[in-house]
């Protein structure tokens, strides 16, 4: 069944959203995923796709502060909501605490999973600014990395949490 066979009702929807704080109004296909919207319509290619079954975590973004898998989330569902992606983490070209900690701890190699880990880690630290190692592992267990063996990622998140707490403020 293709689009032209289903033409008795609209197959797209007008949405208004904020992406990394920037207001965006667009008409999107109902069938478009948030990942397609971000990557193909807005050119925000920092969000990657891999398993497309919500298990690898590569496409993790935050919608109204909740982590979601952009591969299995409709673009129309960001209507009226705030979306945060990896492109929104750095401030005026300066890496935030999590990004710096990932670089300094060698918590990435190929980097394809990294946006997802950063967004999930952002979500974790917003919920729990002082996580234990166990809590980090539990929260990030739904993200896959094939390069690092994970240990440097755990260290980076704990390191970033410490830096953010030491700075006394959330850095975003």
């Amino acid at each position, binding site marked *: 069944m293709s689009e032209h066979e289903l033409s008795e009702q609209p197959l797209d929807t007008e949405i208004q959203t904020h992406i990394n704080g920037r207001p965006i109004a667009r008409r999107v296909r109902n069938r478009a995923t948030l990942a397609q919207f971000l990557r193909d319509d807005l050119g925000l290619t920092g969000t990657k796709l891999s398993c497309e079954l919500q298990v690898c975590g590569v496409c993790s973004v935050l919608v109204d502060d909740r982590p979601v898998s952009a591969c299995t989330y409709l673009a129309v569902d960001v209507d009226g909501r705030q979306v945060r992606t990896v492109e929104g983490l750095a401030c005026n070209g300066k890496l935030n605490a999590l990004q710096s900690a990932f670089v300094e701890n060698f918590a990435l190699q190929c980097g*394809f999973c990294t946006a997802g880990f950063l967004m999930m880690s952002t979500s974790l630290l917003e919920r729990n600014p002082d996580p234990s190692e166990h809590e980090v592992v539990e929260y990030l267990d739904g993200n896959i990395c094939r390069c690092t063996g994970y240990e440097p990622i755990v260290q980076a998140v704990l390191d970033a949490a410490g830096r953010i707490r030491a700075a006394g403020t959330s850095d975003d």
Partner: protein
Amino acid sequence: MTDSKMKAHPVFPEHSGKSFAGKAVLRRDLKEKVTGAAVYTVDVVPPGCLHAVVVRSDRAHARIIDVDRSEALAVPGVVAVITSDDLTGLFPRFGHIVPDHCILAIDKVRYYGEPVVLVIGDDLYSASDGADLVRIEYDELPAVMTIDEALAPDATLVHEEQYASTGDESFSAMAAAPDDSDTALPATDNITHSHELAWGDVQAAFAASDVIVETLIHFPMLYGYAMEPYNSVAHFTDDGLHVTSSAQHPYMVRTDLARVFDLPLAKVRVDVPYLGGGYGTKSYTKLEPLAAIGAWITKRPVKLVVDVEGAIYTTRADAAQTRMRTGFTSDGVILAREYEVILESGAYADNSPLVLAKAVNRAFGPYRVPNIAGRGKSVYTNTAPASSYRGFGAPQGALAGELNLDQAAEQLGLDPYELRRRNLVHPGEEILPGKRGIDADLHADLGMLEESLKRDASDQPMHGIGVGLAASDAGAFPVSTAIVRIQTDGSAVVMSGATEMGQGSKSVLVQLVAEELGIPMEVVQVVQSDTGAGSYERTTGASRTTTLVGLAVQRACGDARRKIAEMASEIFECTPDLIDHLPGGISGPDGLSATFGEVIQRWFGAEAGEVTGVGTVRREGVTQKMPPFWEVGVVGVEVAVDPETGFVTVEQLVTVADVGFAMNPKAVEGQDLGAATQGLGYSLYEELVYDGPQIVNPNVVEYRVPRMGDLPKKIDTMIAQRGDGVGPYGAKGAGEGALNPMGPAVASAIARATGKWPDRLPLTPERVWRLMNGLPEADDLG
């Protein structure tokens, strides 16, 4: 080139004097990867790009009767629906060893998942809707799904003919027919390739043995799961064919594409942005011909991205069954090893012939084996084609060789360290006659491993320790080039055909140039992996980049320095012997000195120009002997087994990276832990499972890879640096070693915990439970 004044490493001859090499510098590529700015192939969409979707076979083996494209073509936005019938005038196959791999199935499909039709649309929506409407009519053929079925007498042939070789010298022994033969030879069996290794008198040695131990072990069918699935974008212009692709070896892909379209190599440009993981799975040609035929037919840029299922049906790793028999003296000295490795290689050869050769070379281990008879077969089946994956051949081979040693240790009453010590070669000793001697101190490495494992060992029940050693003839065929261009301000551009796939080559190249030229890393720029704008590199694989590309870069820096010195002698009007090297410049007579930039500007007489240094590596000098280096693997684990469920917890993971010289120790540790983790994956969790014609778990939900929650309780990644490699400063490759012998280490650890020896990987909880309870691999359900 004979200038006697030029020394090999004139500026920093001493290990201790290095400014950049050997330091845990922050990797060059990571910053743009944490901001989302880094560009991967999947992010490249040229203007006017069309999108392609592959329609795949839903039969394992069937004749194609008819393809009905009419409904697909009726979908608005669908531009073309392509089958192999549309490729008239092209060479419709690819393959770097034997070009047996159909771009789109010709006449018949050889496996479930094989590309049959390519649907191209204005966007992915129309292409995808069109693909859903392609109707293919088949006439089913008998299929051979396993090694046994494929090797049975009168088995159906996967390929009716044997293909001529590609003419690539290093692979010439791996094809049935020479490359100049015009007529294809009819095939008589499903054997893709055979390989043998023999010396000594095995029969006599077994007769003289006090203890003979035999092991039969199955290595699982794996999927490397590089998280960026395969994708390519192709475009024809007046300049020829331009393909941007997720390829580890752009120059090898270029050769395949040039053959398909009968183009000069110079008219095929393949470039590779960042790779989202490679691990060998992106070696050699994958989707590039598909995207390119789409572009050829439509005369527009065409992009093709497959999903994980499509990636699994593009390339997986060879499964293996290996029988290993070893004869020992009563005190544990190896007298002979006899073995056979059979690889289940799927429907097309791809790199399996080479994987096979490596599996046979790498099965017997870094030991003194006076008598050997090793042989192997790579077998075509009607399953997804197998090709390279990290360690290629070594994990399949070492599993049998090492597990067999551990079983022998038990019979001989020796601990696994001691049995290995009694047979392990010393530095410089040959394990393959006539080849390079082992360039590692494995006795010392084993000592480090043993010390760490014993320090934290538990004496609780259901715990077990296992160790594994391996030696891989690594580095592949040594052909590398590099170009270093020094600019008028003293900055430098280094050009290499090596791909940055996460292993950190970009950063290592910067360190090397900064070190060799004595300039800050910040002023070194890297251009990588572009056959149209860079420098030739045969492959990015076999752990070769730091060693071989490193040598080429070092030589390119030396060449540039030599040219600068010549220019300076002209400027200073002195003989070249009065020019000496300084960091970032030269000194001349009478206390004169000049920076590189000053020399270039004064020589050209303007604030313009550059100096180009070229470095090459081939089979001569330090890289004359094959292999260029040995990559050894030294790993150990301690496991705990739940006696009720068979669930395995990894208590200790210990690795020794014997890398000669660690260009960036943090990066080496990262590569080692990553390799070890993938090793734990195939040891404990990962396996593609066929049920009937298709894979039952072609996805990441059911193909279970290591997760953060699987992190071993103790991780000790040690680095041994003894300067014994042929690469820069004594470096040799890393990145595969810790994966290669992980299987036998885990298997023997579980054997020691449970008292039972497994005969297959991965050791899933159910397998371990069955092992403990003496139950067969599967129940007879009547």
